[in-house]
């Protein structure tokens, strides 16, 4: 590999097939998901993904404003992905830039595929993703967090959406690249899927891979998404664990009989 910024390229994969942080090629970074961390938002989630720290908040469905953005047939999804100035090693200038506008757009579109938006005409579902600390793969962490936050907000949806990236480093296909691997690697391939049907709702690629490499990477990312899906379910079930003890009689919503 040659090119600008490649002079100090570290060795990304050693002789034993281990990566710089000791992971195997098909190993994820440790992931921790927590649901319902914010009190003011309708739904929220916090994800720690390796050194990534991402917070997602969801509001709605609420009336879309200004009125001209309303859709009389369905709700709209508005998403904002934002990186904190302190999230990267060199201070990031606050505010939206080309990259975050793109990620906001594609993240919103991911959720348009799973939310039952027809149930809430003229309304808006607002998703806010704040990256507190970044170490490559924040868009995947953001999508993972946002889908848990949407479920926490009680918004009807067909499925949770896990996301994960695979890529190519030192000529080999590897899962879930971290910062150094992303910077010095050859390719990065973020993928988001609907686990129930294995439909792909997000697929981007940065860099070059052959077709067979692409297929290997895609399958690797999809397998990882299924693992992340389990973590998402667990996070939601953990939050509502106590609710499982509900008495059967009380579950059947009684009609109001008072006054």
């Amino acid at each position: 590999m040659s090119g600008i910024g490649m002079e100090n390229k570290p060795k990304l994969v050693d002789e034993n097939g281990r990566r710089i942080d000791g992971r195997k090629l098909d190993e994820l970074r440790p992931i921790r998901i927590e649901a319902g961390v914010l009190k003011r938002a309708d739904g929220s989630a916090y994800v720690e993904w390796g050194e990534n720290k991402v917070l997602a908040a969801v509001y709605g469905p609420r009336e879309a404003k200004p009125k001209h953005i309303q859709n009389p047939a369905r709700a709209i999804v508005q998403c904002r992905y934002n990186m904190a100035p302190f999230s990267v090693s060199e201070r990031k200038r606050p505010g939206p830039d080309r990259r975050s506008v793109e990620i906001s757009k594609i993240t919103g579109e991911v959720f348009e595929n799973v939310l039952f938006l027809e149930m809430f005409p003229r309304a808006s579902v607002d998703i806010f993703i704040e990256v507190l600390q970044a170490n490559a793969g924040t868009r995947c962490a953001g999508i993972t967090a946002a889908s848990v936050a949407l479920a926490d907000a009680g918004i009807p949806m067909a499925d949770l959406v896990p996301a994960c990236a695979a890529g190519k480093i030192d000529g080999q296909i590897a899962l879930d690249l971290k910062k150094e691997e992303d910077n010095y690697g050859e390719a990065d391939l973020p993928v988001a899927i609907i686990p129930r049907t294995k439909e792909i709702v997000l697929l981007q690629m940065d860099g070059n891979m052959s077709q067979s490499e692409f297929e290997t990477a895609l399958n690797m990312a999809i397998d990882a998404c299924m693992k992340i899906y389990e973590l998402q379910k667990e996070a939601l079930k953990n939050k509502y664990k106590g609710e499982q003890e509900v008495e059967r009689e009380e579950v059947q919503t009684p009609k109001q009989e008072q006054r």
Partner: protein
Amino acid sequence: MEERKQMQNVATRKIVVPGELLMKGHMKPGVGTYARDGQIFAATVGILNVHGNYVNVIPLSGKYMPRVGDVIIGKIIDVAPTNWLVDINAPYPAPLHISGTPWRIEMGETQKYLNVGDMVLCEVEAVDETKRVMVTMGKPGCKKLLGGEIIEITPTKVPRVIGKGGSMINLLKNYTKCRIFVGQNGRIWIEGSVEQIAIAILAIRKIEEESHLLGLTDSIKNFLEEKTKNLTQ
């Protein structure tokens, strides 16, 4: 039949998340679920509940969605010559027309009766397919709420605060001697002395927090007994 009974027992305490497979075959999808390829899946986080031929998911969170006939507590947010706009704690505000009030109002005199910030007890009159909501005060019991205090709870917990056949709400009323009204949209109006209201609010918050525990009515009864004992001393 035997099989279904078994399913019901298993179903009652199970917590489900969106996308989870609930049932295959002959059942029908109810609230909080959707059907694909003859299978029923959960659409929200909630408790699995089988009722008759329907598979439901009782949601644990979510916004209030207006249904015709719901008695709710609304807040006036705008005044127009022939109607008011009412915030009903749903994704949509609802107009209240002068013809739906118990008063005889001349056009342009709406402000004399209700003004911005007033709270009203009203009923959902109509909801159309684009979720345009109409409320009315023409039904018995509907009125402007004067005095008292209003608190908000998660709309999905409203059935818990009312209790089975109104058991919980009667408990609250008897012990605190407050006048209480629970709107289906999660707003609760309480009237009484300051101390009584304080106890009622504490109890409602306790219900909201412990809504999942067994023997909730008993624990609230003990709680109220304890609190109201101090009140009389």
